[in-house]
Protein backbone atom coordinates (compact mmCIF):
# COMPACT_ATOMS: atom_id res chain seq x y z
CA UNK A 1 0.00 0.00 0.00
CA UNK A 2 1.32 3.42 -0.95
CA UNK A 3 1.02 6.25 1.60
CA UNK A 4 1.99 9.90 1.28
CA UNK A 5 3.28 11.59 4.42
CA UNK A 6 3.83 15.28 5.07
CA UNK A 7 6.06 16.25 7.97
CA UNK A 8 5.83 19.48 9.94
CA UNK A 9 7.84 21.25 12.61
CA UNK A 10 9.91 19.00 14.86
CA UNK A 11 8.93 15.86 12.93
CA UNK A 12 10.05 17.48 9.67
CA UNK A 13 13.42 18.26 11.20
CA UNK A 14 13.85 14.82 12.75
CA UNK A 15 12.78 13.04 9.55
CA UNK A 16 15.06 15.30 7.55
CA UNK A 17 12.39 15.80 4.88
CA UNK A 18 9.13 17.60 4.20
CA UNK A 19 7.29 14.75 2.57
CA UNK A 20 7.70 11.25 1.28
CA UNK A 21 5.75 8.48 -0.36
CA UNK A 22 6.36 5.00 0.97
CA UNK A 23 5.19 1.42 0.74
CA UNK A 24 3.89 0.14 4.05
CA UNK A 25 2.00 -2.77 5.55
CA UNK A 26 0.74 -0.54 8.37
CA UNK A 27 -3.02 -0.90 8.78
CA UNK A 28 -3.54 2.26 10.85
CA UNK A 29 -1.86 5.61 11.54
CA UNK A 30 -0.83 4.28 14.96
CA UNK A 31 0.96 1.38 13.34
CA UNK A 32 2.55 3.64 10.74
CA UNK A 33 3.82 6.07 13.38
CA UNK A 34 5.51 3.23 15.26
CA UNK A 35 7.32 2.19 12.08
CA UNK A 36 8.44 5.79 11.46
CA UNK A 37 9.64 6.16 15.06
CA UNK A 38 11.90 3.18 14.48
CA UNK A 39 13.16 4.65 11.23
CA UNK A 40 13.66 8.28 12.31
CA UNK A 41 13.89 8.10 16.10
CA UNK A 42 11.00 10.51 16.66
CA UNK A 43 11.00 11.49 20.33
CA UNK A 44 7.35 12.57 20.52
CA UNK A 45 5.10 9.86 21.93
CA UNK A 46 1.89 9.15 20.08
CA UNK A 47 -0.23 10.36 22.99
CA UNK A 48 1.04 13.91 22.41
CA UNK A 49 0.19 13.88 18.70
CA UNK A 50 -2.93 14.08 16.64
CA UNK A 51 -3.24 12.59 13.18
CA UNK A 52 -5.01 13.57 9.96
CA UNK A 53 -5.80 11.58 6.85
CA UNK A 54 -6.50 13.49 3.64
CA UNK A 55 -6.63 16.82 5.48
CA UNK A 56 -9.14 15.76 8.15
CA UNK A 57 -8.48 14.86 11.76
CA UNK A 58 -9.03 11.13 12.30
CA UNK A 59 -8.65 8.35 14.85
CA UNK A 60 -5.37 6.55 15.31
CA UNK A 61 -7.21 3.29 14.62
CA UNK A 62 -8.76 4.35 11.32
CA UNK A 63 -7.91 2.00 8.45
CA UNK A 64 -5.37 3.36 5.98
CA UNK A 65 -6.21 3.13 2.30
CA UNK A 66 -3.90 3.08 -0.69
CA UNK A 67 -2.98 6.64 -1.70
CA UNK A 68 -3.90 8.25 1.63
CA UNK A 69 -2.09 11.41 2.65
CA UNK A 70 -1.17 11.19 6.34
CA UNK A 71 -0.01 14.00 8.61
CA UNK A 72 1.15 13.54 12.20
CA UNK A 73 0.46 16.69 14.17
CA UNK A 74 2.88 17.65 16.96
CA UNK A 75 1.57 19.74 19.88
CA UNK A 76 0.42 23.00 18.29
CA UNK A 77 1.69 26.43 19.22
CA UNK A 78 -0.04 29.02 17.08
CA UNK A 79 -0.46 32.63 18.09
Amino acid at each position, binding site marked *: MQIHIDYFAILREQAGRQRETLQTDAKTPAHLYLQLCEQYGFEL*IQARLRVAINDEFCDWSQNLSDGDRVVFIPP*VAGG
Partner: protein
Amino acid sequence: MSTFLLQKEPIDTAALRQRVADPDCGGYASFEGWIRNENEGRAVSRLEYEAYAPLAIAEAHRIVNEALKRFEINNALSAHRLGALDVGDLAVWVGVSAPHRADAFAACRYIIDEIKQRLPIWKKEHYADGKAQWVNCAQCASQASLV
Protein backbone atom coordinates in the same frame (compact mmCIF):
# COMPACT_ATOMS: atom_id res chain seq x y z
CA MET B 1 -16.07 34.84 1.99
CA SER B 2 -13.00 33.35 3.62
CA THR B 3 -12.95 33.92 7.38
CA PHE B 4 -9.28 33.07 7.93
CA LEU B 5 -6.07 34.12 6.23
CA LEU B 6 -2.78 32.27 6.53
CA GLN B 7 -0.02 34.32 4.97
CA LYS B 8 3.68 35.08 4.74
CA GLU B 9 3.01 38.78 4.18
CA PRO B 10 2.35 41.16 7.08
CA ILE B 11 -1.30 41.26 8.17
CA ASP B 12 -3.08 44.44 7.02
CA THR B 13 -5.29 44.93 10.07
CA ALA B 14 -6.90 48.11 8.72
CA ALA B 15 -8.08 46.31 5.57
CA LEU B 16 -9.40 43.36 7.58
CA ARG B 17 -11.22 45.71 9.97
CA GLN B 18 -13.00 47.21 6.96
CA ARG B 19 -14.24 43.75 6.03
CA VAL B 20 -16.00 43.26 9.38
CA ALA B 21 -17.39 46.82 9.54
CA ASP B 22 -21.18 46.82 9.58
CA PRO B 23 -23.75 49.59 10.16
CA ASP B 24 -25.81 47.13 12.24
CA CYS B 25 -22.93 46.84 14.71
CA GLY B 26 -22.15 49.04 17.68
CA GLY B 27 -19.14 47.13 18.92
CA TYR B 28 -15.90 45.88 17.42
CA ALA B 29 -13.38 43.89 19.46
CA SER B 30 -10.03 42.89 18.09
CA PHE B 31 -7.01 41.02 19.34
CA GLU B 32 -3.41 41.00 18.17
CA GLY B 33 -0.79 38.50 19.25
CA TRP B 34 2.68 40.05 19.18
CA ILE B 35 6.07 38.35 19.37
CA ARG B 36 7.32 38.95 22.92
CA ASN B 37 10.97 39.48 23.71
CA GLU B 38 10.86 36.64 26.24
CA ASN B 39 9.05 33.38 26.92
CA GLU B 40 9.20 31.50 30.20
CA GLY B 41 12.22 33.44 31.29
CA ARG B 42 14.27 33.02 28.10
CA ALA B 43 15.18 36.01 25.90
CA VAL B 44 13.61 35.49 22.46
CA SER B 45 15.33 36.91 19.38
CA ARG B 46 13.04 35.69 16.59
CA LEU B 47 10.45 33.06 15.64
CA GLU B 48 9.57 30.84 12.74
CA TYR B 49 6.00 29.76 12.10
CA GLU B 50 4.81 26.94 9.93
CA ALA B 51 1.38 25.47 9.35
CA TYR B 52 -0.38 22.48 7.92
CA ALA B 53 -2.36 24.86 5.76
CA PRO B 54 -5.40 22.94 4.46
CA LEU B 55 -6.33 21.65 7.91
CA ALA B 56 -5.51 24.95 9.65
CA ILE B 57 -7.82 26.82 7.28
CA ALA B 58 -10.63 24.28 7.66
CA GLU B 59 -10.33 24.25 11.46
CA ALA B 60 -10.28 28.06 11.66
CA HIS B 61 -13.44 28.15 9.58
CA ARG B 62 -15.09 25.74 12.03
CA ILE B 63 -14.04 27.95 14.94
CA VAL B 64 -15.59 31.05 13.38
CA ASN B 65 -18.80 29.15 12.70
CA GLU B 66 -18.91 28.01 16.32
CA ALA B 67 -18.51 31.63 17.43
CA LEU B 68 -21.32 32.72 15.10
CA LYS B 69 -23.60 30.16 16.77
CA ARG B 70 -22.56 30.84 20.37
CA PHE B 71 -22.59 34.63 20.32
CA GLU B 72 -24.71 37.35 18.77
CA ILE B 73 -22.12 38.63 16.35
CA ASN B 74 -22.36 39.72 12.74
CA ASN B 75 -18.86 39.21 11.37
CA ALA B 76 -15.63 37.56 12.46
CA LEU B 77 -12.30 37.32 10.69
CA SER B 78 -8.87 36.11 11.70
CA ALA B 79 -5.39 35.88 10.22
CA HIS B 80 -2.08 34.22 11.08
CA ARG B 81 1.44 34.92 9.84
CA LEU B 82 3.81 32.25 8.53
CA GLY B 83 7.59 32.27 8.18
CA ALA B 84 10.22 34.27 10.02
CA LEU B 85 9.03 36.91 12.50
CA ASP B 86 10.89 39.32 14.76
CA VAL B 87 10.16 40.59 18.27
CA GLY B 88 7.27 43.05 18.10
CA ASP B 89 5.79 41.57 14.92
CA LEU B 90 2.11 40.75 14.69
CA ALA B 91 1.68 36.95 14.53
CA VAL B 92 -2.08 36.55 14.82
CA TRP B 93 -5.11 38.86 14.51
CA VAL B 94 -8.82 38.43 15.29
CA GLY B 95 -11.60 40.96 14.65
CA VAL B 96 -15.29 40.66 15.55
CA SER B 97 -18.20 43.04 15.02
CA ALA B 98 -21.48 42.73 16.92
CA PRO B 99 -24.55 44.77 17.75
CA HIS B 100 -23.38 44.95 21.39
CA ARG B 101 -19.93 44.91 22.92
CA ALA B 102 -20.34 41.97 25.32
CA ASP B 103 -20.74 39.56 22.40
CA ALA B 104 -17.92 41.17 20.45
CA PHE B 105 -15.51 40.67 23.37
CA ALA B 106 -16.67 37.12 24.17
CA ALA B 107 -16.48 35.94 20.57
CA CYS B 108 -13.07 37.53 20.00
CA ARG B 109 -11.75 35.81 23.11
CA TYR B 110 -13.30 32.50 22.08
CA ILE B 111 -11.75 32.62 18.60
CA ILE B 112 -8.21 33.42 19.73
CA ASP B 113 -8.34 30.77 22.47
CA GLU B 114 -9.49 28.11 20.04
CA ILE B 115 -7.03 29.18 17.35
CA LYS B 116 -4.17 28.72 19.78
CA GLN B 117 -5.41 25.33 20.95
CA ARG B 118 -6.63 23.75 17.76
CA LEU B 119 -4.92 25.06 14.64
CA PRO B 120 -2.04 22.93 13.30
CA ILE B 121 0.46 25.79 13.47
CA TRP B 122 3.86 25.56 15.10
CA LYS B 123 6.50 28.00 16.17
CA LYS B 124 10.18 27.54 16.67
CA GLU B 125 11.63 30.00 19.13
CA HIS B 126 15.18 31.23 18.62
CA TYR B 127 16.77 32.54 21.79
CA ALA B 128 19.34 35.22 22.45
CA ASP B 129 21.78 32.50 23.56
CA GLY B 130 21.70 30.95 20.06
CA LYS B 131 19.56 27.96 21.00
CA ALA B 132 16.17 27.17 19.48
CA GLN B 133 13.23 24.88 20.12
CA TRP B 134 9.76 24.02 18.88
CA VAL B 135 7.37 25.41 21.48
CA ASN B 136 5.36 22.73 23.34
CA CYS B 137 7.56 19.96 21.99
CA ALA B 138 10.49 20.17 24.38
CA GLN B 139 8.44 18.75 27.26
CA CYS B 140 6.93 16.02 25.10
CA ALA B 141 10.36 14.95 24.00
CA SER B 142 11.60 14.69 27.56
CA GLN B 143 8.49 12.69 28.45
CA ALA B 144 9.22 10.40 25.51
CA SER B 145 12.73 9.80 26.75
CA LEU B 146 11.26 8.47 30.00
CA VAL B 147 9.16 5.85 28.25
